[in-house]
Structures are given as C-alpha cells and as structure tokens.
C-alpha cells in the first residue's frame, strides 16, 4: 500500500515535517490496555482544545486478542478517524505484520523492540522512520516483577508525549483522575512508567510533530470540551432531555447506553431497568411513558426487530417514546462488532399497518448528545415514537466537542397529575397531548389508551370514517413536524455537478472528501440528513440544482445502485438523477475510497482509486 491517510499517493514526501494533525495507530492485544491509553490520548486532545476522533477494532475472540486503537487528533476540525496512520505503534510481531500497511509512506514506526523485528529494508523503501523502544523490558525495569502487562501502555503514553510535545502536566492530572481512586501504589507506578517513557530518548522523531495549544488572551475563556463516545453522548443527551425511565436488554453495541443510564438515572430520581427481553423492554418503557414519565428503550438490529409489534402500538396509542437503535452489521446476528447502516428500512417500517413514526439519525458523537434532546422533544410534542439511529462507528469512537449549554434544558410535561375539566385522548382537531394517569377529570369520563382503532375517547370503533380520520390524523403529525424542520445546509457550492447526500456516521468522511476534492479543483457539495422521517422540506428544489445526486450509505444497493435512503428519496421525489454509493464490508468509508467511488460513479478524476480493502484490520 502506498497511500497517505487521505488516500492520495505519496511519492515525493521527504522527512516528515511538523504537523498539527496526526493519526496514531496503536496495535497490540486488547489485554495490553491499548484502549485505555488511546482513550487518554483522546481526552488529552479534548482538554487541549484539539479535535479528536478515535477508532478501534474489537477482537474476534470473546475477550482479548489482537486489537487496535487509532487516535486522530488535530488543531483543526477532525472529521474522520483517518485513513492511514502517521505513527504506528506495534507491540508484537503480529501487530507489525498486520498493520504496517496502514502506516503511510514517510511515517514513523514505533515498536516494542523486545518483541518486534521489523524488515528495515522494506521500511527504508517506504521512507518510514523506525523507532525501536524496548517497551516491555524498560517497563519491567522501572516497575519490577512482571509489570509486563501493567505499565507498558503508560510507558508508551510517555513516549508519545515526548514525540508530540504533549502537555505533561495535563497528563499527570489525567492519570491522577484515572488511577487516583485505586490503591495508591497504582498511581505511583503509572507515574513512574509515564516519566520513564517521557525520558526515553527518541532522537529526531521528537521534532516531527508539535501540537500547539491555542493561546488565550486575557479575559478570553478557553473552550471547554467534552470527550466521550457516541454511546455515552446518547446517555447524557437522554438525561439532559429529561428522560427519567428506561427499560431494555443488553446487546452489542447498544449496551453501554443502558449501562450508563442504569448508573446515572437514579441520581435524577429515575431508573433504567434491565428486562427479561426486548419485548418487555419496550413494553415497560411504554408503561412508564403512559405514566407520563419521559421514557426510552433501545437496542441494536435484532432487538429493534423484536420491538416491531409494540412500535405499531405506540403509533396507534400515540405514546411518546424514544427508541434508540445502535446499528451493527446485519442481517440476523450478522457482524455484531462492525458498522452498517442497514436498519433504516426497519426503522421506517417496523411494525404492521400504516404506522407513521419519526426517524432521526446522528451524524457524530456531538450529535448524539444534541439530537437525542431534539428527538425526545419531538416525541412529546407530537405524542409519537421516535426511532433514533446511531451505529457501531459512532457508538465506539471518542470525539471531543464543546461543553453544551445546559441553561435551557427542555421542560417536558412530565408525570405530575393535573385536574382537567374533560379530556379526549385522541382528539381529531388537534395533536394528542398525553394526560398522565392520576389526573382527575371533572366530567368523570376517564380515557382508554388502546391499540384498537378508536374514537376520540379511546373507545373501539370500526366505523369506516373514523378509521380514515384517525389514520389521517396520525399521518398529519408527520406533515406538521416536517414543516418545522430546517432544510439541511449545503457544505460546498449551492448548486453544481454533484451533491453527495449522507446520513449517520458518514458525515465527517463525506465532508472531508468534499474538502479534498475542492483542493483538487472539483466542486462537490454535500448535505447531511438528520431527519429521515419525515424528511425536511426543500430537498426537491435542492436536488434539482445539481446534475447528479449520490446518496452515500453503508448498506446494500438495489438494481439501480441505490441504498436504503436513496430509495426513500427516489420514491419521494421521483428524480432519476438520484443514485447511490453503497458499501457492505462492515467498515466505515475511508476518504480515498469514497473519492474513488465518486469518480467511478461520475467519471470525475478526483483521485486515483483508493487502496483495496484487504482485511478488517487494515482499515478504520
């Protein structure tokens, strides 16, 4: 492989220069704590007002085994986890063998010389700077005994701090936070390992990269950033939105959302319960939502499928509910630890009958926080279930984003019983507003909440006009909501040859592809859809301003090359220039790959075809 992290060939690059944007890939075994050192690097980047995005693979064996953690950090906007690494850290010979390919020409190979023997000629040919560090033996020296697995990662952190001129004070503080609550010796050992790594001489390499922390003039406040995974962001977003009850069943990669909420909600007087299965999960969440408590459930594909029948009830009974689906590779058990966007069809159509519901998708970690809040508000405003799509890539990667403004958290109606004169659960002349049970109704007519077709009071009705009216009422909510949505902003020129349409975790890659293409003089544009049902207004006019519209998604194509969203857009706007770029290898798009696919689809030569996908580990 001979391409850089942006998928462009590297034939003229000399000795690496100072960069303010670097991709570090750490390859070892998951037992080595590579994830925790990677996460610390990411947090550090966040604390230094840098942007950061991480990527990791999950080992094939149930616990442990070869794994990588990649950190892309920079002083500008980091939109992807990076195509190729600037620095590859190899703990073992297999790490070296499997990942050398992912290191760009002219990059740095930092390896544990206790375990790894690189082919120096090959490195030379690719102008890679070898940086041998006897990590295992030095760590044992410093910590004594079989510290082998315990301190090596922190030692590495010290080496990287030196290489990137990271702020050691901040790192020490971080270690204090991470290890401070454990036995005192743990922190001491960590600090010893850190200083050992920092002190180890790495020669020239020390001058390759420097991250400049922004200087703040007096009075100017530093931007505080949050650094977290997408799953954490959903959980905190839900708390911020006012969700106070949840019920679900564990499944990868959804589980961390519920684990986080299980631990956190009680502090807000709420609770999140683990139910016996997914059917019970959504039923319990619906029960609490009926009670007036803002509630949620969630799962990944298999669990969302199991919730189908109850989703149809939620639509019919008009109960507000947040339903999160952290997508993974399908169908069936599929590829549980890979990424795919193949649950869109299910999100749109889960459940029987005409059952209009809201579907939204997060574009990145920050979105998970903010968009979940919007989703919960929509659910309550329209008394409707909202399916919120995330995916394995967003769920597991770490990003930094500005500390949110908490001053205006939503104030949902909540479960407090009220007294009303009279109440219709299903009025035909306006949108249902759910009344919590416990509310006293002066005219003495208490409402039925039901999955049968019903009249305005919730009593069963098979009257043809009533079913027509109620069906239209449920549909009209989507129309009303759509009218309030903003037309997505165009990234790039407002009209032209090519509009890329994305949804979900592809946003960063698509934007970076547009930027790279622009640098080459190709005027691509992009929009990103967060609202998938209903669709925002203005799309048809927007699409008409471009010669070609390509919907980029990670799911399978139909005979026209269209993926799941592309088909929705074609059905809606019947514009034959809407096509698709799809992908079903369980991996996120790389920038070079996407540019090549665009070129293939359009004949534009933005860049030579990106490297082929040769194994799960060779690509983010």
């Amino acid at each position, binding site marked *: 492989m001979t391409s850089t992290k942006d998928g462009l060939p590297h034939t003229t690059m000399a000795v690496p220069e100072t960069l303010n944007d670097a991709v570090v890939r750490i390859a070892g075994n998951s037992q080595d704590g590579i994830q925790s050192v990677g996460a610390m690097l990411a947090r550090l980047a*966040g604390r230094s007002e840098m942007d950061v995005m991480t990527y990791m693979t999950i080992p094939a064996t149930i616990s442990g085994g070869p794994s990588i953690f990649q950190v892309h950090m920079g002083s500008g906007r980091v939109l992807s986890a990076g195509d190729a690494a600037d620095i590859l850290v190899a703990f073992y010979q297999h790490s070296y063998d499997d990942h050398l390919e992912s290191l760009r020409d002219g990059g740095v190979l930092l390896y544990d010389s206790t375990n790894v023997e690189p082919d120096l000629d090959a490195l030379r040919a690719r102008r890679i700077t070898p940086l041998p560090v006897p990590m295992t033996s030095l760590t044992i020296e410093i910590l004594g005994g079989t510290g082998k697995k315990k301190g090596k990662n922190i030692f590495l952190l010290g080496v990287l701090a030196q290489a990137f001129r990271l702020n050691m004070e901040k790192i020490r503080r971080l270690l204090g936070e991470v290890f401070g609550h454990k036995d005192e010796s743990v922190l001491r050992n960590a600090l010893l390992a850190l200083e050992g790594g920092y002190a180890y001489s790495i020669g020239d390499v020390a001058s390759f990269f420097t991250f400049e922390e922004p200087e703040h003039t007096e009075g100017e406040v530093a931007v505080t950033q949050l650094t977290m995974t997408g799953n954490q962001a959903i959980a905190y977003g839900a708390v911020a939105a006012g969700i106070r009850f949840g019920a679900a069943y564990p499944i990868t990669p959804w589980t961390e959302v519920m684990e986080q909420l299980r631990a956190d909600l009680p502090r807000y007087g709420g609770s999140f*319960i683990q139910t016996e299965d997914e059917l019970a999960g959504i039923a319990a969440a619906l029960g609490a939502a009926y009670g007036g*408590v803002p509630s949620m459930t969630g799962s990944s594909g298999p669990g969302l499928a199991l919730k189908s029948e109850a989703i149809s009830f939620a639509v019919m009974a008009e109960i507000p509910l947040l339903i999160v689906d952290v997508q993974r590779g399908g169908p069936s058990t599929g590829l549980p630890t890979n990424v795919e966007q193949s649950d869109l069809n299910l999100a749109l159509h889960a459940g029987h009958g005409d059952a209009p519901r809201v579907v939204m998708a997060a574009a990145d970690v920050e979105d998970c926080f903010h968009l979940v809040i919007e989703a919960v508000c929509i659910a309550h405003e329209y008394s409707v279930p909202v399916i919120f799509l995330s995916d394995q890539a967003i769920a597991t990667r770490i990003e930094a984003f500005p500390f949110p403004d908490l001053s205006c958290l939503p104030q949902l109606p909540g479960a407090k019983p009220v007294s009303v004169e009279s109440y219709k659960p299903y009025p035909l002349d306006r949108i249902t507003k759910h009344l919590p049970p416990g509310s006293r109704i002066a005219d003495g007519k208490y409402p039925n909440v039901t*999955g049968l077709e019903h009249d305005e009071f919730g009593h*069963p009705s098979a009257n043809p006009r009533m079913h027509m009216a109620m069906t239209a009422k449920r549909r009209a909510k989507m129309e009303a909501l759509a009218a309030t949505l903003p037309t997505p902003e165009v990234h790039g020129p407002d009209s032209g040859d090519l509009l890329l349409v994305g949804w979900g975790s592809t946003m960063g890659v698509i934007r970076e592809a547009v930027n790279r293409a622009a640098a080459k003089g190709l005027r691509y544009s992009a929009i990103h859809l967060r609202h998938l049902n209903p669709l925002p207004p203005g799309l048809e006019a927007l699409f008409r301003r471009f010669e070609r519209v390509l919907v980029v998604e990670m799911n399978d194509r139909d005979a026209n090359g269209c993926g799941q969203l592309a088909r929705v857009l074609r059905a809606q706007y019947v514009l034959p220039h809407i096509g698709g770029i799809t992908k079903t290898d369980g991996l996120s798009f790389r920038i070079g790959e996407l540019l090549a696919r665009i070129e293939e689809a359009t004949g534009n030569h933005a860049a030579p075809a990106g490297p082929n996908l040769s194994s799960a580990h060779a690509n983010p």
Partner: protein
Amino acid sequence: MVHAANQTPICAEPRPPLTRADLKADKPTWCPGCGDFSVLAIYHKLLEKKNLPQESIVTLSGIGCSSRFPYFVNTHSVHFIHGRILPFATGLSLSRPDLHPIVFIGDGDAYSIGGNHFDHCARKNVRLMVVVMDNQVYGLTKKQTSPTSPVGFRSKTDPWGSRVAPINPTKKLISSGATFVARTAASNPNHMLEMMEAALDHDGFSVVECFSECVQFNPGSFDAAVPRKGGAYEPVPEDHDVTDEEAAYALTRDAFPGHFGVFLKVKRPTLNEMEANLAENPVSDGDPDAVRSQLEASLRKLT
C-alpha cells in the same frame, strides 16, 4: 418520576364516595352468560368498597375477551397488546408509585404468549395486582386450545381433543416467586371479592387465578367447582400456612378443580423499593437548577 416517598393524596379535599355509577362505562360486548360479567361486577364492587380516588386507579389488559375489561370500567385504562401487559404495568408501577395498576387478562395472554413476563415479574416482586380470568380456552379467537385447557378438550386446534398436559398456573406462580397467590372462581362472587381485596392490599406481585366460564366455547368447564351444579368449592385447608412455599406447592397438586383461597402470601422487598433506593438524595425534576448542576457535574468528569 413521582416518588412514593413524596406521595401525597392526589385529591385532598373531601369528595363523595365512589359509586357504581361513577365506574360505569361501555356496555360489555361479552356473550350473555359469560363468566367475565361476574368478574367485572366484583371489580366494580371492589373499587366501590375500597373507595380509592377514581383517578388513581389504572385498569390494564392485554388482548382477549377478558381483556376487553378496561372499556367496561370508567378509570384511566389501557388496552395493550397480546401477552405484554405485565412489563407495561411494571414500567407504570415503577415510575408511578402513586397509582394503583390492576391487570385483567386471559389464560392465553397470561400463560402462553405472556408466560415469561409472569415469571420475571414474580421473582422481581413488582408491586402489581393481576387477575387472570381463566376460561381454559381462547375465547376471542373462537376456541383454540389454551395452556390451561384440560387433556381431552376438543378445540379447533385440537379436534381430536388436547393431549398435552396443561400448565398448572398456581404452581407456576408459586415456583416463580410470586408473593401473593390466590385461586377463586367467578361463580363465587363473595369469595372473588375477598381474594381481590386481599390481592389489592398486598404490597408486591399479587395474582388471583380466577375461573371464569366461557359459555360459548367451553360451557360447563367449571361445574365441578359449583355446588349448585353438583360440584364442590373446596377452600384451602384452614391449617394451611400461607407463608410455607412447599406446602403451597403441594396444595397445587390436588386434582381438578383443586382448592380455592390464598395459597401463598409472603413478604419480600418489592422491585419498586429496590429501584427507588439506588441513589441517595436524587435531584428532582421539580428543581431544574439541581438537575442542571447534577448533570453539569457528571459532564465535567468527561472534560
């Protein structure tokens, strides 16, 4: 979330007692003579007797003839989907301890499609009262075998007569950990009222298994428990210790129609209590500033 601790009576001012007229709703669509009428009448009586604030009662059901129940009683009510009302009611019970959720379902809903939820509600001891209106048949779908149909029962799915051993609901409930288990029959209204009242008073998962004859598809099925039809309504022995699980289990093994009364009544912490005490001093949504600082503090850890 409303906390039991902060629970205040919803309606403090004095009000006239709840009457049957208050509780009247749609005219039942059941077949004339169906046992379910009698269960409904006793439920009305129970609510009248207990005189709970009308708005605090939530009548819940799944799907089945029996599950039409909520339309026939004027309280907040939910007609959910088949087999899943127990987890629905669990969510309601946990998040609204100020309410009285009462579930009415059929034998198919309870023990066939919904069987697992029963076991898990039982072991978790969710504060919830459930009445299973057992007619030993699928009524609404017009006569298929139910998990309680006796061997030999001829249904549309067992035209030769059912051959499979039915489940023993009382046994199932006892062994899965329900803290209150009673048996009664719609043919004996006074006893039914007594059992329902005891179930309502129980703090925990309380189940009343109640024979309710389907005159349409399973007529005469409970005659053996009706003295005026030559049967015997055998009460639970006087000396039965309702806290003795093994004794209760042994009692379930008696031949049809078995004993009627309270089989088991034990005290165990409810899931409601366990879940309410997970955090010390939770902030309340009534205090948005406290919520905000709590959240801010959590997020600060991730900066």
